[in-house]
């Protein structure tokens, strides 16, 4: 492509012509001190809390502390060129970010500016990053499922639309993987997704975006990335900014899923900000309002009532624990705020159970209300079976003489654990999950060796799709297993099981 100097000067000429000269009326203040991303500003007398202030060079800051004779302000950008005595202007705007359908497929920073090099956002709407959560009257109880595509989660700790389900666990055991799968699972549904990356490496975020794009999930996803090298203030507000983007869908009668990856880093950056603003530290040096910080953020995930459009915002916050310590300050806080947690365990992860969900410690307080009948029918006994299996497995290690009933339970448990395993980037639809869980809980897998179950599962889906597609369509439509459907499923599983065994040379 050749650029003509002529054309450029034409463009610039147009810009100069269109440039409106207007007298700039602004309220100003002067910087008293600046350092560590915090500036103290004298003046700006009518400054509001959370108002954006403009520093020299167009850098923005947020007024966080309004004191008697100065304003404590967090700078959202490079502080290199800002010095004492500089003039700061009020913008008169409370911190806000662009929202709307134009944000989908984009990667933005914590303040809502695009960082993916795909040009301006062109968003028509913007929304304040700090708004009050819907009140009691504006809400409705969570009643429809929001599938995460993971068999273990959807069967045992179901997430409903409007629910907040915590994903908690140590580093490197698949927390992000579980959530990315949940985003991919929203493909072909009406759920819009927002992935908020807080304090992560830029390479990790790039990898997540790449994977989402590869699986066609970027079309309905917005990524808000406040990386480790961004200022603490940016990391702190990124969660609220992402939430504001999700709220747009909720308030317009649509559904959205937001993932905060992760809130422990957000808490750490808020601690940094608070300490620099000289707010008194409390437990683990976190400020006194760290609980409020998380509760007001997660309260905004809600299911709103029919009069308001019945939209929903589902939140999957992630918390990283240190060596499995769930009784640290931030994990206990967030556990108490959310409607349940999915607990991931290193022992399971390294034993090959992936996703490494500890079924005993994971709960969903919304529970059955967020499951369709078919899922309830197959998953009803799953929890119990697995609990009994774990108890027996601990004892079975001591001796070999076991009665038939115990042995049957061990066999069943082993197979259930096996079918709950799932490879990454392969979320399953509800009907597929129901089929495999049906096979597991009704004993169709008891005769098969554990090793071949992954293969069995893959072939089963193909078989049903080819030979009995009505099973999937019936499950989708009726969302329940009636006697006719059960009969059909049983016979299909029987014939498939026989042919599978024959093909593997098993008796």
């Amino acid at each position, binding site marked *: 492509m050749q650029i003509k100097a002529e054309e450029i000067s034409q463009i610039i000429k147009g*810009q*100069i012509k269109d440039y409106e000269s207007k007298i*700039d*009326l*602004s309220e*100003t203040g002067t910087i008293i001190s600046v350092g560590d991303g915090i500036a103290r500003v*004298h003046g*700006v007398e009518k400054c509001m809390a959370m108002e954006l202030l403009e520093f020299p060079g167009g850098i923005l800051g947020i007024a966080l502390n309004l004191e*008697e004779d100065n304003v404590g302000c967090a700078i959202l950008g490079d502080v290199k060129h800002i010095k004492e005595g500089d003039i700061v202007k009020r913008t008169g705007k409370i911190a806000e970010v662009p929202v709307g359908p134009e944000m989908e497929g984009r990667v933005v920073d914590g303040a809502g500016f695009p960082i993916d090099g795909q040009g301006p956002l062109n968003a028509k709407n913007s929304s304040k990053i700090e708004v009050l959560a819907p009140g009691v009257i504006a809400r409705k109880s969570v009643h429809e499922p929001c599938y995460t595509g993971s068999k273990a989660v959807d069967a045992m700790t179901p997430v409903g639309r409007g629910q907040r389900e915590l994903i908690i666990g140590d580093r490197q055991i698949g927390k992000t993987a579980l959530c990315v799968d949940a985003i991919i699972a929203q493909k072909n549904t009406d759920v819009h997704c927002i992935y908020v990356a807080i304090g992560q490496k830029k390479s990790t975020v790039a990898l997540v975006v790449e994977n989402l794009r590869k699986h066609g999930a970027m079309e309905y996803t917005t990524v808000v990335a406040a990386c480790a090298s961004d200022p603490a203030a940016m990391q702190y507000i990124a969660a609220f900014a992402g939430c504001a983007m999700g709220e747009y869908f909720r308030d317009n009668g649509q559904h959205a899923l937001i993932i905060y990856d992760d809130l422990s880093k957000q808490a750490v950056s808020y601690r940094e900000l608070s300490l620099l603003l000289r707010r008194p530290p409390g437990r683990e040096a976190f400020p006194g309002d760290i609980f409020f910080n998380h509760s007001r953020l997660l309260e905004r995930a809600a299911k709103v009532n029919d009069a308001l459009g019945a939209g929903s915002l589902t939140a999957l916050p992630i918390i990283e624990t240190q060596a499995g310590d769930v009784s640290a300050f931030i994990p206990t806080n967030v556990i108490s705020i959310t409607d349940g947690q999915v607990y991931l365990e290193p022992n399971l992860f390294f034993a090959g159970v992936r996703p490494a969900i500890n079924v005993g410690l994971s709960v969903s307080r919304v529970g059955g209300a967020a499951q369709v009948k078919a899922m309830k029918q197959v998953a009803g006994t799953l929890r119990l079976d697995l609990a009994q299996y774990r108890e027996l497995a601990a004892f079975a290690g001591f001796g070999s003489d076991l009665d038939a009933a115990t042995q049957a339970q061990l066999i069943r448990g082993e197979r259930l654990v096996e079918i709950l395993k799932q490879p990454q980037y392969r979320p399953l639809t509800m009907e597929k999950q129901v089929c495999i869980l049906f096979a597991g809980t009704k004993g169709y897998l008891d005769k098969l060796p554990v090793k071949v179950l992954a293969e069995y599962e893959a072939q089963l889906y193909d078989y049903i799709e080819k030979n009995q597609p009505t099973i999937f369509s019936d499950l989708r439509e009726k969302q329940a297993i009636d006697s006719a459907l059960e009969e059909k499923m049983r016979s299909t599983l029987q014939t498939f099981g026989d042919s599978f065994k024959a093909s593997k040379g098993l008796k």
Partner: protein
Amino acid sequence: MKNTVLAKRYAKALFAVGKEEGAFEDYTKSLNAMAELYAGMPEVSDALTNFLYPVDVREKVMDHLLQALKVSQIMGNFFKLLVQKKRANILPEIAQVFQAMVDADKNMCQGTVTSAMELSPDLSEKVKATLEKITGKQVVLTTQVDPSIIGGIVAKVGDLVLDGSIKSQLAGLKESIKGSE
């Protein structure tokens, strides 16, 4: 500006005395004169504030200064008190805060107009009237000349800045061309 809290306390006390005596004018004048002295002659402020000199020496310096300046008795006492309490260093801030307090009491405010060339009297009168309309207060205007703004004027009243200079318009134009790239 670093000691505004302290300065406010002293200014408030002086203001209360001034209200009783009704001698704001005189106080403001002496305070501003002293502040100017501080700014103009660093040696004076050093002699009054440097902790290396004993307090009685500094008090003597102040005594001499006061005699030379011929300030009223109350202001004299005030300045001496500042030296005694080792607060002579915040005198410029006190002068500023006191001025603001007196202005607020009289519904007045201080404004500055910066222009590239000397303003004609009727033009500066016009600027004053406009500023008074915006702020709703009486404006005491001081004018400054700064050729670096090229043209137009910059008016400043308190925190409010009206910037109509060619310099800032050029900067805005630069930003708008840069921003649309």
